[in-house]
C-alpha cells in the first residue's frame, strides 16, 4: 500500500478488495432511551466513503452528525442503540460485531479526534504515555521501543522538542498543541479511517488552519479516509471532497463539495449557505430569502449598506468612549508572590514577574458607531472590554465615557455608579450568563429593578413586554426558565437585558460564538436593527473577522496586548495593511463562491 511493512491482517484483507468502499452505512437509525421515552437521534442515514476520500458531515446542533460518527465507532453511551440499518467497515459488520472485535478495530483501523482537545486528554498522565498506551494496546510497539515510536509520531504532528514534550502533561500545553497530541493519538497506529468531530471548534483561526492542514497532509500521505464533522460550511468546503448536509437526524443533501456550494439543491442547504459569513456580503444577505424583504426594501429599516454610508458621511461629531494609553498588568503565573520574594529578599526583574495583558492602547468609539475588537485568544481583547466595562481596574491609562473620566472610579464602586446604566454588556455564553432560577421575564427585569427605578407592578411588566417585543422574543416565552429556551431565545433574553436601561454603549463579547450559523445570522441582524432604532454604540469583541466586518463600521485588530491595525471594516478586510491581519484573514476558511 504505502510501503508499510507491518500491515495488519485487517488492512491486508481490504487491499484484496480495493474496489469496495471503506465505509458503507445503510439506512442507519439510532435511538436513545430517555426518561421521556425513546428519541430517534438519527434516522435512515446512508453514506459511502471510498478509500482516501474525505467526507464532510455538516449540520447544526441536534442534526445527528456526531451521533452518526459515534455509531460508526460503536462508542455511543449506554442509552443509545442501533435500531435499524447496517454499518460495513472494510467488509466487517460493525453493528453486530462482538465488543472485543470492535475494540481491536478502534484506534488501530478507525480512530477519532475530538473537539475540546484539552478535555479529551487524561489530565494526569503524560502525553507521551497516553500515546504509548495506544501503541502498546495494538502491538505497534513493545516496552523497549515505545518511547522511540511515540517521539517519532510526535515529530510527525510537528510538535517542537518532542523528547521534552513526551514528559509533558496536557495542562502544560496550549490548545493547539493539545489538538496535535489528540491527532497523534489517533494516528498512533495506522488507521484507515479518521473521524474528526469538530476538531477545531474553540481554536483560533490561525491554529485551526494549522491543525486542519496537518490533518489533511497526514491523512493524504497515508491514503486514509476522513469523516469531518463540523458546523462550519466554510471548513467543510475547504477540506472535503464530498459534503453531506444533515438536519434533525436526516440527510438532506449529499454532493461533491464544489457542487454543493455552486448549486445547493435543498432549501436547508441554501439557508445554511446564506447564513455563513463570507466576504463581500451584507448582514441582510445572511437571512433566508423572504419575498417581503426583497419586494419592499424601502419599508424595512434602512439596509445596512445605506446605514453605513450615512454613518460614514455624517461628520464624526461626538466621541462616546475615549480610551487613552490603557495598560493592564498581571503578576506572571508561577512567579513567586511579591510577599514571598520580599521575604526572601530576592527581586526578579519586572519583565519576569509581570505580564502585560493590555499594552498601552488607545482608541475611541463615536456615538452610534460600532467598533470591532478582533484578535486571537490571549491578545487582550477581553481584558480591554472588561476594563471598559469597569469590572476590573486598569494598571494605567484613562477611559473617558461621555466626557467623564470613568477610570478614576474604582471597579468595586462602579456597580453603584449612575454611569453603570449607560454601559451594558452581552455575554459570550447565553446559557451561562443567565441565572438558571430566573424566568426570562425576571432576567430582563433585573437591571430595571436594580437601576431603573422600577419596583415591580404593571409598569415593569409593560416595559419587559416592550423589550421582549423589541428583541423578537414571543411573550409566551417570558414565563420560561433558561433551560426551557433554545440558544437563540436565550441570546435574545441576554440582549433584552442589556438594552433594558437604554444604554449608550453595549459591549458585545462574542455574543454569537455559541450559536448555530442560522441563529447567528438572525441575532446579528437583530443587533443591527436595535442599533439603528436606539442609537447605541457597540464595542464588538470577537475572533471572527468576517462576523465583525458585517456588523461593525470600524475594526481594531489586536495582538499580544497591542493594536496592530485600525481602520474601517471595508478597508481592513479588503486591503489589510498589517501582515498579521492578512494572516488572520487568509486563515478563515470559506465556501468557494
Amino acid at each position, binding site marked *: 500500500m504505502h510501503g508499510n511493512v507491518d500491515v495488519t491482517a485487517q488492512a491486508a484483507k481490504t487491499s484484496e478488495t480495493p474496489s469496495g468502499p471503506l465505509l458503507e452505512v445503510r439506512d442507519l437509525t439510532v435511538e436513545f432511551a430517555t426518561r421521556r421515552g425513546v428519541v430517534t437521534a438519527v434516522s435512515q442515514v446512508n453514506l459511502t466513503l471510498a478509500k482516501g476520500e474525505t467526507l464532510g458531515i455538516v449540520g447544526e446542533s441536534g442534526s445527528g452528525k456526531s451521533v452518526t460518527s459515534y455509531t460508526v465507532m460503536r462508542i455511543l453511551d449506554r442509552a443509545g442503540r442501533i435500531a435499524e440499518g447496517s454499518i460495513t467497515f472494510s467488509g466487517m459488520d460493525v453493528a453486530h460485531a462482538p465488543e472485543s472485535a470492535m*475494540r481491536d478495530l478502534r*484506534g488501530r483501523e478507525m480512530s*477519532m479526534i475530538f473537539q475540546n482537545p484539552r478535555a479529551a486528554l487524561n489530565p494526569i498522565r503524560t502525553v507521551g504515555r497516553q500515546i504509548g*498506551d495506544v501503541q502498546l494496546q495494538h502491538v505497534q510497539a513493545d516496552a523497549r521501543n515505545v518511547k522511540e515510536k511515540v517521539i517519532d509520531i510526535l515529530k510527525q504532528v510537528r510538535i517542537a522538542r518532542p523528547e521534552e514534550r513526551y514528559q509533558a502533561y496536557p495542562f502544560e500545553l496550549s490548545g493547539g498543541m493539545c489538538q496535535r497530541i489528540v491527532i497523534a493519538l489517533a494516528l*498512533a497506529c495506522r488507521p484507515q479511517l479518521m473521524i474528526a468531530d469538530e476538531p477545531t471548534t474553540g481554536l483560533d483561526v490561525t491554529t485551526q488552519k494549522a491543525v486542519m492542514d496537518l490533518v489533511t497532509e497526514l491523512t493524504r500521505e497515508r491514503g486514509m479516509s476522513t469523516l469531518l464533522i463540523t458546523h462550519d460550511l466554510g471548513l467543510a468546503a475547504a477540506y472535503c471532497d464530498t459534503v453531506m448536509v444533515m438536519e434533525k437526524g436526516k440527510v438532506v443533501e449529499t454532493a461533491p463539495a464544489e457542487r454543493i456550494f455552486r448549486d445547493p439543491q435543498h432549501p436547508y442547504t441554501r439557508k445554511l449557505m446564506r447564513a455563513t459569513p463570507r466576504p463581500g456580503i451584507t448582514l441582510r444577505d445572511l437571512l433566508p430569502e423572504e419575498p417581503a424583504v426583497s419586494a419592499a426594501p424601502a419599508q424595512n429599516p434602512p439596509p445596512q449598506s445605506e446605514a453605513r454610508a450615512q454613518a460614514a458621511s455624517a461628520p464624526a461629531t461626538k466621541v462616546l468612549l475615549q480610551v487613552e494609553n490603557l495598560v493592564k498588568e498581571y503578576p506572571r503565573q508561577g512567579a513567586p508572590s511579591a510577599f514571598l520574594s520580599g521575604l526572601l529578599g530576592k527581586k526578579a526583574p519586572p519583565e519576569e514577574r509581570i505580564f502585560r495583558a493590555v499594552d498601552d492602547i488607545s482608541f475611541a468609539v463615536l456615538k452610534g458607531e460600532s467598533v470591532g475588537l478582533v484578535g486571537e485568544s490571549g491578545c487582550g481583547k477581553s481584558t480591554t472590554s472588561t476594563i471598559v466595562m469597569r469590572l476590573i481596574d486598569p494598571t494605567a491609562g484613562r477611559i473617558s465615557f461621555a466626557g467623564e473620566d470613568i477610570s478614576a472610579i474604582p471597579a468595586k464602586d462602579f456597580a453603584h455608579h449612575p454611569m453603570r446604566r449607560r454601559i451594558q454588556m452581552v455575554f459570550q455564553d447565553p446559557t451561562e450568563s443567565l441565572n438558571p432560577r430566573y424566568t426570562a421575564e425576571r432576567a430582563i427585569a433585573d437591571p430595571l429593578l436594580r437601576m431603573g427605578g422600577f419596583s415591580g407592578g404593571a409598569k415593569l411588566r409593560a416595559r419587559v413586554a416592550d423589550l421582549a417585543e423589541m428583541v423578537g422574543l414571543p411573550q409566551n416565552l417570558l414565563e420560561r426558565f433558561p433551560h426551557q429556551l433554545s440558544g437563540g431565545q436565550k441570546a435574545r433574553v441576554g440582549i433584552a437585558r442589556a438594552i433594558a436601561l437604554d444604554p449608550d454603549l453595549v459591549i458585545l463579547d462574542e455574543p454569537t460564538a455559541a450559536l448555530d450559523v442560522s441563529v447567528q445570522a438572525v441575532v446579528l441582524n437583530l443587533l443591527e436593527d436595535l442599533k439603528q432604532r436606539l442609537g447605541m454604540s457597540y464595542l464588538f469583541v470577537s475572533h471572527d473577522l468576517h462576523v465583525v466586518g458585517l456588523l461593525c463600521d470600524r475594526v481594531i485588530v489586536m495582538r499580544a496586548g497591542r493594536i496592530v491595525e485600525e481602520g474601517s471594516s471595508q478597508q481592513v478586510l479588503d486591503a489589510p495593511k498589517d501582515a498579521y491581519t492578512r494572516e488572520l484573514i487568509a486563515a478563515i476558511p470559506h465556501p468557494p463562491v
Partner: protein
Amino acid sequence: MLKLIGSRLATAVPSLIGVVIVTFMLTRVLPGDTAAYFAGPAATAESIAEIRTKLGLDKPLPVQFVDYVSALAKGDLGSSLSTGQPVAAEISARLPASAELTLAGLILALAIAVPFGIMAAVKQGSWVDHACRLITTAGVSLPVFFTGLLLVYVFYFKLGWAPAPLGRLDVFFSAPETVTGFYLIDSLIARDFETFRAALAQLAVPAITLAIFALAPIARMTRASMLSVLSSEFVRTARAAGLTDTTVIITYAFRNAMLPVVTTLGMVFSFLLGANVLVEKVFAWPGIGSYAVEALITSDYAPVQGFVLAMAILYVILNLLIDIAYGVIDPRARSEA
C-alpha cells in the same frame, strides 16, 4: 515536592500555636476546681490551698501559661494528677494502640469500599450498585457502639470465634518488645507468630466495627467520583483508541477519581479518631481516647492538653500526607506549589 512539604509545614505552625493557646484557655475555664478535687472530700481549706500552691494554680494565668509553654519547649507535658505518671510517657504508650486500631479499621474499610465503589460505578444500576447503596446506608446509620456491641455479642458470646473484648492482648501473652508500638508489626519483628495471631484476634472485631463506620463515605465517594470521571471526554478518547476496559477503568478513570477519595480519606480518618473513644470503651482498648475522657472528667489539665496537642499534631501530619498524595497523583497540584 520538597518545597510543597516545606510550605505546608510552615503554614501548620500558626495553627499549632493556636491549639496550644486555646487548649490552655479552655482547660482553665472548665468548671471544677482541680485542687479541691484532689484534696478529697474531707480536705480543709488550708490543705486545698496547699495543693493549689504546689500545682502552681495560685499564680496569675499569664504566668501559668509561660510556665506551661517553657515546659512544653523542653518536651515536658506535665504529669497526670490521677496516675502521677508523666503525660508524655503515657501518651506515647497509648497512642500506638489507638493508631493501630484506627489504621487497621481504615485499611480494612479501604480494601472493601474502593473496589465496591468502582464496581458500583462501572455497573451502574446492577445488583452490585444496589448492594453498595444498602451497605453504605447501613454503615452510616448504625452508631459504632451499637455495631461494636452487636459484633461482640455475635462473635464472642454466641459463636465464640473472637476472644474476650478485653484490650490489645490476651492475658496469657506478653506484649512484644516495643519498636513501633504496633503489636502486629512488633511481634513480626520479634518473629513471635503466636503473639501476632493473638494480637490480630483481639484487633479483628474492633477494627471491623470501625471499618463498617468508615466504609460508607469512602464507597459513596468512590462511586460518585468514578461516575463523573467515566462520563468525561478523556475516557471517551481512551475508549475510541481501543484501550481495554481494565486500562480505561484503572489507569485512566480510577487514578483521576482518586483525588476526591483521598480528600474523603483524610476526613474519615479524623472521624475515626473521634469514634475511637467509644470503641475503645466497648473493647477496653488501652488507647488515647479513653485516657483523655477520664482525664477530662477529673479536671486533670495536663493529660487533656497533651491529648489535644497530640491530636493537632496528628492532623497536621495527616493533612501533609494527603497533600503529598495529591501531589503524587495530580501533576497540576505539584506545579501549583
